[in-house]
């Protein structure tokens, strides 16, 4: 079971996409990158107070160059790190005290992380996932599609418990971009959830 989001999860998703013939076939015509925005919520706070989730989340952010991490300064997520968890943004990941951060996270409320967002960028191209990585605020703003929503909604999607279309229809996830293109390639969207994301069980 992988933690979402974590380095392990990203690697497992890339592997699942590579292995899935159904996904490759369904998405063979798809061209378009996604900027994904995960907004912190009550469930995120609750999960962060588990050591393995904090460790996974730090491993995810560690995929970003430290220079990029500094771009969070002054954002709600930057404030969570610097003011609520006491970690300067340029701290190397191996210097993080996971236990201490977990303990501090357990004292946070949803209000404390209001507006705090994590960003990741994925490049889907003709049935392959050419890239999936965390990015800093402002990066890849020109992505073909933007998918945003609360952490709890993201977990529903990446676990395969609810499909992307229903989450977008209920406004739990907000999809921006050329919807005509999405409708034309609905099979790829469905396969991404069912064949790739759901193939990576999350904790």
């Amino acid at each position, binding site marked *: 079971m992988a933690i979402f989001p974590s380095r392990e999860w990203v690697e497992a998703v890339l592997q699942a996409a590579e292995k899935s013939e159904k996904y490759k076939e369904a998405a063979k015509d798809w061209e378009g990158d996604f900027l994904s925005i995960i907004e912190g919520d009550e469930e995120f706070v609750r999960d962060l107070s588990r050591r393995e989730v904090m460790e996974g989340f730090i491993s995810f952010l560690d995929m970003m160059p430290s220079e990029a991490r500094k771009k969070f300064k002054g954002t709600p997520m930057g404030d969570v790190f610097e003011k609520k968890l006491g970690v300067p943004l340029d701290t190397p990941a191996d210097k993080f005290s996971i236990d201490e951060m977990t303990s501090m996270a357990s004292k946070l409320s949803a209000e404390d992380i209001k507006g705090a967002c994590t960003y990741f960028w994925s490049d889907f191209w003709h049935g392959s996932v050419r890239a999936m990585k965390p990015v800093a605020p402002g990066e890849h703003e020109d992505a073909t599609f933007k998918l945003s929503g609360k952490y709890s909604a993201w977990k529903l999607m990446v676990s395969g418990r609810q499909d992307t279309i229903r989450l977008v229809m*209920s*406004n739990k996830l907000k999809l921006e971009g050329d*919807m005509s293109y999405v409708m*034309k390639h*609905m*099979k790829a969207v*469905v396969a991404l959830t069912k064949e790739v994301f759901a193939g990576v069980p999350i904790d």
Partner: protein
Amino acid sequence: MVLKGGDKGESIPFDAPLYDINRERGIEYRNCDALAAVFMITGDINEILPEGLEPFSDPPQGIIWISRYSYSTLGQYNEQISLIMVKDIHGEMGYYIPYIYVTNDAAMAAGRELAGAPKKLADIDIKNKLDFLEGTLERPSGKRLITFTFKPVERAMGSVVEAYFPYPTPLLSVRHLPWVKEPGDGLTQLISWYVEIDFHKDPKGESTIWMGPASITYDSPSELDPVHKLKFDEVLGATYFQFDMKLNVKEVQKEY
């Protein structure tokens, strides 16, 4: 003018038209509700698509719609529509209607004569049963062609709803008048028409669209009314909504 005494409308009999249409406002509907489900079609639909139209997506997508119109300028009636998402002559997305059923004669005649919607009369209903809404199509009475069971769970909104029901929602059908003396003196045209769906708002300003799980079955397939030709494995999304609507014709896209 056709009648020596002057026509009283656009449909026959001209001295007592079965339906009429205000060209500017179209056909108007108030206080309607509908069940609609979107799905990916399995199997070949080429045999029921007219020349000039291609599926919009691969696989093609379809919609089954069952509605109640408590008031319209064609009277009160219910309707069932099977739709296929297609690319029209201009390459734009639209919905082609292979099958459509209504419960009154004015709606049937107007649909067939104005837009080429291949309407037939049938028994169509939406009933509240337990915690479900159940839409049904029977033709003739007792021969159940479709049962659409829906459980409203949460509100639907956002870009997907707008994408499936854009404003206006383009429709396509084939208007046909058989020839009389020889092939060529009849009429066969691909007609583009549209509906403007105005979803009702609740007191908080939210659209009254609900989504939830749905079950759609072709209970007793009939070769005489083969709505079951729109085969599917799984419903992508199902909704129940309350709305007002306007319907009008747009252009002849193709002569056959």
